[in-house]
């Protein structure tokens, strides 16, 4: 076969491979190339995040508005410090927005649900969400129930 045909097909092959890699990065692993410019981070303290994972979704009224960007533990207070990456410019969340950790689907994937607030002022980059409710842990609920049944 002529060298030119070989070169063209090799070029097309390399191009196809590169496109496939980009597809894997963008469409499959969900890397958003333009993410850095239009998102900001708010933080929230939870008493328990059991089962919440990095990159879990942050939603409001069931619509995804961001992702969990970091989960750390505050040893002093025994609380979990969760960073939430919110899409859009700062100013779209009211100052008294609430956050709670809920469970989705049968496999039990945890996600953060934001509850709209009423305050005029808005959360800035790096602010803390004050109103939080941690994950419900089944064992704790069962424990509560047993103590309550025993005392009655």
């Amino acid at each position: 076969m002529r060298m030119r045909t070989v070169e063209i097909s090799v070029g097309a092959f390399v191009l196809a491979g590169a496109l496939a890699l980009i597809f894997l990065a963008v469409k499959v692993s969900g890397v958003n190339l333009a993410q850095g410019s239009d998102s900001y981070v708010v933080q929230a303290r939870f008493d328990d995040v059991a089962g919440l994972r990095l990159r879990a979704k942050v939603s409001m009224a069931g619509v995804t508005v961001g992702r969990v960007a970091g989960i750390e533990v505050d040893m002093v207070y025994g609380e979990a410090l969760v960073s939430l990456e919110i899409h859009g410019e700062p100013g779209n969340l009211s100052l008294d927005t609430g956050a709670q950790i809920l469970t989705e689907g049968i496999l039990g994937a945890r996600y953060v649900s934001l509850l709209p607030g009423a305050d005029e002022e808005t959360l800035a980059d790096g602010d803390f969400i004050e109103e939080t409710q941690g994950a419900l842990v089944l064992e704790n609920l069962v424990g509560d129930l047993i103590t309550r049944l025993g005392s009655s």
Partner: protein
Amino acid sequence: MIDFVRALGDRSLDRLSSLGRASIMWATALWGLPRLSELPLVIRQIYNVGVLSLIIIILSAFSIGAVIALQFYTQLARFGAEDAVGLGLALVLLRELGPVVTGLLFAGRAGSAVTAEIGLMKTTEQLSSMEMMGVDPLRRIVAPRLWAGVISMPLLTAVFNVVAIYGGMVVAVEWLGSDAGSFWSGMQDTVELWNDVGKGMVKSVIFAVVVTWIAVFQGYDMEPTPEGIGLATTRTVVTSSVMILAMDFILTLSMYGEFR
């Protein structure tokens, strides 16, 4: 008894010295390449091992993706968790099946061809005549094939993964009626760029090195007879397949540890 021990020693020495010869060949070939004038040789070989493997890769990827989606769907549907088909499919493909199956197909399609080609060159004494002309066959014949393999296989793996995910989507979404939105978003929520896509690619580069190394060495080191070619080709496919599967376990263990 003594004979048995002697035979064992003989075998071990034989294996050891062939491993040594293979390492020397690998080192010399790698040392020899970085020259722009030899690029056409590499391109030619990328055509031979990469472009020509594309059809078998695409066909197998589509059917493997489709069959995985089918199995996942029927099992997960029992728990009402059909939405997890996308992420299960993507994780299985990116982490394991993509690199491994591409490696096996690559060994069968390209590795055997390389062994047979180099073997035939050796049998017809083309390699020795090259040496007579002052051309180093390691540079001229071996090095371009090694490089072409290492360049082609990660690209083939990426194509494999994409086609397989597409095949899975066709079955799960178009045919079985799983929701397209949850198929993709479940995937995007879970799959991580480095941990899943990146590590899969690292695997495929390692497999590429192993397969091309074995293929080229078997051709270069075989007995220059017609039976020798047949034996060497078989050995290439068998050895690389076993190596890929064994190394995949070790790599998975070291990459993903206790299944984080």
